[in-house]
């Protein structure tokens, strides 16, 4: 699938492929033309991706080919043991987690998981966790704390699931408890928004010593569509809503609501999983190294102080 603004780039890429095969078949030297076209593609890519609107970034964050939590985990870790269940109700497949090794260091990885095809999407509930998902996440975080292993969370959700059973089982309570408990975790916690960071459903696993966003993701209190439907009373103002919400990584960094941005390859994370995963891995290891040097009390104090300073009043 292609997004509207990816179309012209892919057209040129197809043209380039055609020229290359032509060059192989014939004796005519068209290397100059090929070089020109290659340059043109790079500059068009730069022009497109350095000037993305906020809504276009939202679209990229939801790109059907975008890497999901397990893609990163499998790419980053040497070994990974997935763990299941909240020990109370069931195993929420919209929330995954387990221990994984990265360059000899064990981390607890936790994240919302989306599906790639219709069947998977249904199984993963489109990355919308139920209360048991948040409780599973908390169980795994407590286990990480017990065995003194740092925690990495990957955030990618259109929101916590707004269903009947979710309410019966206390969706609000489950998220609230995670917020409170995560502040007191004795191990380092690194949170990375890899796709969509929608509201409380995202925040429920996003209290960390370092909160980072990939370049083409969004993180806010509501999706642009829902914001449009509530404030403009129509679904048609999603572009304006995205602008108004200032929900991109650069916006969030500027407002000091996150700690940093992880760059994506030109064209977006979905064009090169290896490259983006390498960047994510580097970021995790670098941040772990600095966080690990601090005392437990210091880390918790800084975590609390950081979030306590968020907000603007007069």
């Amino acid at each position, binding site marked *: 699938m292609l997004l509207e603004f990816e179309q012209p780039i892919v057209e040129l890429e197809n043209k380039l492929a055609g020229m290359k095969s032509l060059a192989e078949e014939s004796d005519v030297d068209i290397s100059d033309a090929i070089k020109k076209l290659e340059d043109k593609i790079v500059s068009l890519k730069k022009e497109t991706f350095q000037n993305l609107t906020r809504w276009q970034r939202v679209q990229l964050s939801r790109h059907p080919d975008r890497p999901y939590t397990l893609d990163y985990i499998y790419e980053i870790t040497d070994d990974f043991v997935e763990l299941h269940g909240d020990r109370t109700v069931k195993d929420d497949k919209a929330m995954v987690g387990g221990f994984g090794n990265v360059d000899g260091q064990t981390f607890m990885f936790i994240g919302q998981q989306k599906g790639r095809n219709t069947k998977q999407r249904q199984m993963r509930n489109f990355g919308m966790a139920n209360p048991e998902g948040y409780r599973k996440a908390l169980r795994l975080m407590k286990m990480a704390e017990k065995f003194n292993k740092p925690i990495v969370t990957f955030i990618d959700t259109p929101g*916590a*699931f*707004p*269903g*009947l059973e*979710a*309410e*019966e*089982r*206390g*969706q*609000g*309570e489950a*998220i*609230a*408890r995670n*917020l*409170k*408990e995560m*502040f*007191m975790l004795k191990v380092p916690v690194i949170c990375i928004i890899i796709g969509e960071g929608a*509201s*409380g459903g995202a*925040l*429920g696993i996003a*209290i960390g010593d370092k909160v980072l966003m990939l370049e083409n993701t969004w*993180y*806010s*209190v*509501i999706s642009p569509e829902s*914001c449009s439907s*509530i*404030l*403009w009373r129509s679904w048609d103002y999603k572009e304006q809503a995205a602008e*108004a*919400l*200032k*929900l991109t990584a650069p*916006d*969030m960094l500027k*407002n000091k*609501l996150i700690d940093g941005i992880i760059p994506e390859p030109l064209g977006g994370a979905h064009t090169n999983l290896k490259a983006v995963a390498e960047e994510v891995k580097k970021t995790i290891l670098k941040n772990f190294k600095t966080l690990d040097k601090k005392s437990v009390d210091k880390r918790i104090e800084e*975590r*609390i102080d950081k*979030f*306590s300073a*968020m*907000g*603007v*009043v*007069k």
Partner: protein
Amino acid sequence: MAWFKRQNKGILTPTENKKEAPDGLWYKTPGGKIIHMRELKENAYVSPDDEYHVRIGSKEYFEILFDDNKFTELDKDISSADPLEFVDSKPYPVRIKQSQEKTDLKDAVRSAHGKMNGLDLCVACMDFSFIGGSMGSVVGEKIARAIDYSIKKKVPFLMISKSGGARMMEAGFSLMQMAKTSAKLAQLSEAKIPYISLLTDPTTGGVTASYAMLGDFNIAEPGALIGFAGPRVIRETIGKDLPKGFQSAEFVLDHGFLDFIVDRRQLKSKLTTLLKMLK
């Protein structure tokens, strides 16, 4: 045949002689009975016929809880900034100003400390009349500071929630107030100071998913709507009508997320009994 005959047609009283009945003097109960406001006030704003708990704000709750209505308000001059320069149908600062003029409030929460039946208590109480009790930076900051007060003075903390959830016009800032208040409550909990969360009609969204559900004691008023997602959103998600009583305080109690439901007329005495046991 009429009993009497109107001799002059039309209204003859000149406008300046018209007797004005002040607004808000009478209250119509959901059962249809008209009662005097004074009667309602003396009954803790519970309609006497059907026990309906009328939606009230911080002014009324402070009056009900604090001895002789004596209390010291905290941080009463904090008001909203506009960090995102948010504009929807109107600019956010205009919306704030209009709400302030309409409600005579600074924002959607007020906090105070005082005595309740002689016991020290710190209270933060939300006002639904201010942009739907929505939580922005001011709400988060005032609650955080009230909790700081409780920690510093070792005074029990009571949070009275009444909110539609996050304030969209503060987007990311609004979301982080959930984190901020939860961080403070974690510290309050470490300090072993009692935290009572009273959920009133309605308590939904980000408020439910943060401080409202984090009480040592989660309690609610009868019939209050309590939930994470609003009923309309859930109906759209599942494509069916919701069962009767869904997301009512009684439903939430039944599912194990509340300690008890309290009639507003017994609120003060019940809180006193509970807090005395923890002394």
